């Protein structure tokens, strides 16, 4: 009986350590990365807009919507803090009580985590695009 093949547990959007040395040769995506660029007089209006955006862009990454979810993502602060903990940019204590963390350290942790999560989302899609361009 052949040895059981190791299951690849990598999923889209889960920041993992992977070789991205090919990133320079991959095609660019027609992507749109945005954050909140608005100011509202009333907090309620902002929350309503956020709710609508969340419904539009947060797609369950399982089942029928798994493919669509790869192309529509919402990155939340909790994702950034989890990534910061996983990579050791913040300790468990720091991540649970960020008010006490040095601001520069917090900025660096969130920036690095954002870059890593974005790379973990875009690089697989760019590889798929490169494969498709090779075929056609």
């Amino acid at each position, binding site marked *: 009986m052949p040895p059981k093949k190791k299951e690849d547990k990598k999923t889209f959007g889960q920041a993992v350590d992977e070789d991205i040395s090919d990133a320079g040769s991959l095609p660019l995506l027609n992507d749109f*990365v945005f*954050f909140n660029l608005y100011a509202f007089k009333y907090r309620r209006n902002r929350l309503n807009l956020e709710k609508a955006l969340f419904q539009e862009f947060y797609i369950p990454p399982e089942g029928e919507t798994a493919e669509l979810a790869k192309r529509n*993502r919402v*990155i939340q602060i909790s994702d950034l803090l989890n990534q910061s903990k996983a990579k050791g940019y913040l300790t468990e204590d720091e991540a649970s009580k960020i*008010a006490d963390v040095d*601001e520069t350290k917090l900025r660096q942790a*969130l920036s690095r985590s954002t870059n890593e999560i974005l790379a973990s989302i875009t690089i697989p899609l760019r590889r798929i695009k490169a494969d498709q361009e090779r075929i056609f």
Partner: protein
Amino acid sequence: MANDEEKENAKRARFEKLKDELELTVWLKDFPRNALDFQELRRSGA
């Protein structure tokens, strides 16, 4: 009234078309951009 609905539908159709052309859309929700945002984030405790 019907005119408003038509306009809304047309707007929605344009939005959907634009979305179809995009290969990836990412929303960085609550991402702190400036000192004020960081203050709020730290105060909220995330």
